[in-house]
């Protein structure tokens, strides 16, 4: 299974599942990261510790540990 951290910069994907535990899941949902949401990877911090993604029109920063818990598929 592919997760968000595996994606390259500029790649556009669709969320297929959130593997996060309850708190983080609610948090992600409140930012619009849920099943079928389209995400685009915009940038990476040094050594991919943090990534910047686009959800709808919002730019969001995620730590690599969190990005790993978002299962995605190609559009």
């Amino acid at each position, binding site marked *: 299974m592919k997760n968000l951290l595996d994606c390259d910069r500029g790649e556009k994907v669709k969320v297929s599942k959130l593997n996060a535990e309850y*708190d983080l899941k*609610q948090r992600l*949902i*409140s930012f619009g990261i849920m099943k079928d949401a389209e995400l685009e990877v915009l*940038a990476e*911090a040094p050594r991919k*510790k*943090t990534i*910047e993604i686009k959800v709808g*029109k919002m730019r969001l920063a995620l730590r690599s540990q969190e990005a790993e818990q978002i299962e995605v598929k190609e559009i």
Partner: protein
Amino acid sequence: MKEDNEKIVCPVMDKHIKVALVGQPNVGKSMLINSVSNAHLHVGNFSGVTVDKTEVFFDYKDYKFTVVDLPGTYAFTDYTIEEKVTHSYLCAEEYDIIINVMDSTNLEKNLQLTSELLTMSKKLVIALNMSDEADKEGIEVNAQYMSELLNIPCVKVSAAAKTGIEELIETVVKKFEGEKQEPKLIFSEAVEEEIEKIVSYLQKHKYKAVNSYRNIAINLLKENKKTYEKLHEEPLWTELQPLLVEASKHIELHHNTDDIKEAFAEEYAAFNRGIVAEVVKQTTAKSEAKTLTEKIDALLIHPIFGIPIFLFFMWSLFQLTFTLGNIPMDWISAFFTWLGTTIAPTISNDDIRSLVVDGIIGGVGAVVLFVPNIIILFIGIALLETTGYMSRVAFLLDGFFHKFGLHGQSFIPLVTGFGCSIPAYMSARILKNDRDRLLTLFIIGFMSCGARLPVYVLFTGAFFAQSMAGNVLFGIYISGAILGLIFAKILKITAFKGVDEPFVMEMPKYRLPSLKLIWHTVLTQTIMYLKKAGTFIAGAAMMIWFLSNYPHNANLDKVYNAKIEKSVSVKQKVLLENQLAEAQLGKSYLGRLGKLTEPLVAPLGFDWKMNVALQAGLAAKEVVVSTLGVLYSMGGNVDEKSKSLANNIRQNIPFASAVAFIIVIMLYLPCLAATTVFAKEAGSWKYAFYLFVFTSVVAYAFAFIGYRVTLMLM
């Protein structure tokens, strides 16, 4: 007291409207209040500026408005403190109407919160803010159609361009006077079916309720706590419960999840997508060309250049603080000297003259001297906040901070700490996890606040050439920050062990800083500083003057005056006068206190004067400079050249002792006011005591090392 007075002044017949202002972060809520009421709130461009709710009052026609600005929140998951504050206010407090502020350029995301607001069953008005920005981006929102679709009045406004404000207030008044209307919210067929089942069940049993059956049904399905508790008491619950369980199962099955909240989030998202598709038109074909924010980000958060650019900005800020800030310093210094020499002859009593000239004018003058430096630093921090760059830095640094057991968002309170520890302690609330927050709170003090700047400027100015002073200043700040990080790591693996808080943060669009906003932020902070100088510090300066002048030893006067009369050269006379002043100081209350504790600080190379200044600094760092001003001005009254405090310090304090002194200033307790706030934010005075012990031990140890090393190198 004040509230009581207001109640008496307010006639009862006036119509009051209490508005709760709700919106996601970065939608310009505070700015909207600013343009509505001309109030001066602090508006920032990173998540978490409005942590406490703020109330603003203004009149419109016959109405008295109270607007409660609630902290920006993405949803009501009670994840962060902002969310908790807003959620509990909306559920528990009395208010008439909600204004839901939205960013017109990002409706789909903003509507997510709106769908949650609908469950409150309160009167609601939507303010489509930033409509000017939407126009520029070619986004056309049909507010009329949107109002019809949602059955909620939607008004286009722009807080920045001040358009639509009047219409918004009019709409609020109209809505306030009118009947409450059920908003339209349509779910997928599967969910609607289940809602219908519950509604018809409630109808069958003629359940009495204030809210509509539909609203109750939705809340039950969403597992809304309050609705649950209420229905739980009712006799019909026994039959209703199995119905609910089955309904939830169906919905979960439909969404292929085991989490009903996730299912509803998806429902709302689908509904919102539908609304946006209907009412939003992108007029100018959105080309693939990069937006301005993307272009700027390509450089500022570049994996290689990002951090050096950030460091360069910081370095420039400190350079500017020193070089530009030094220009008006000479004028201010000249002004206070002039004031002293003009006032002195008008006071005949020797003691009072000394109190006014040396005590008050000298003490306050020494503090006011640093206003230009502080203004520049505040402008820099305000710029960081309002442009949106702060979030980028958090993004760049999270990986780095995480290594030290901190959170990328710890960066925000830590940088604020360079301005003043008090707002820094308060902004640490953006960290949800208690351990992370405590850890950040404990090391904020290592980020040197604006009040310590005068001490640094004084000492670096005294011991280094003008061209080097800026670099030394930068070095002081950086080494404080590095020590803070090291201690964060140590605390993380000892006192605050545990799981890390996730890092999910919005990166707002870059915005040109509004001059008005920066002006207000800087002005309020500077006035706060000057107020402190005028009241607290003037008081402290007077007290220190008193303690350093009494008891006056007449005997010493006699002995020295006799010697002075006999002296032949001017040079010898000056020397003797200085010795007299020094001896008198030594016999004063302050001198005794300083000397009593001198053995304690002797290993750091401090004399009793430095010791006293540091102890006074526990109350406030500004007092350190004014104390030094009082203590070191006494000996040099005669010689014109030695009048400046910096010169006096260079002549009286050995370099190694000065280094140790700066280290203590860098590391020990910020000030009394900040410590109080710290205790409040940390949740207990116990932590304030820990902080005192922790910082004192660290300061002492490092000052000792600094002193010894400098002695060896010299």
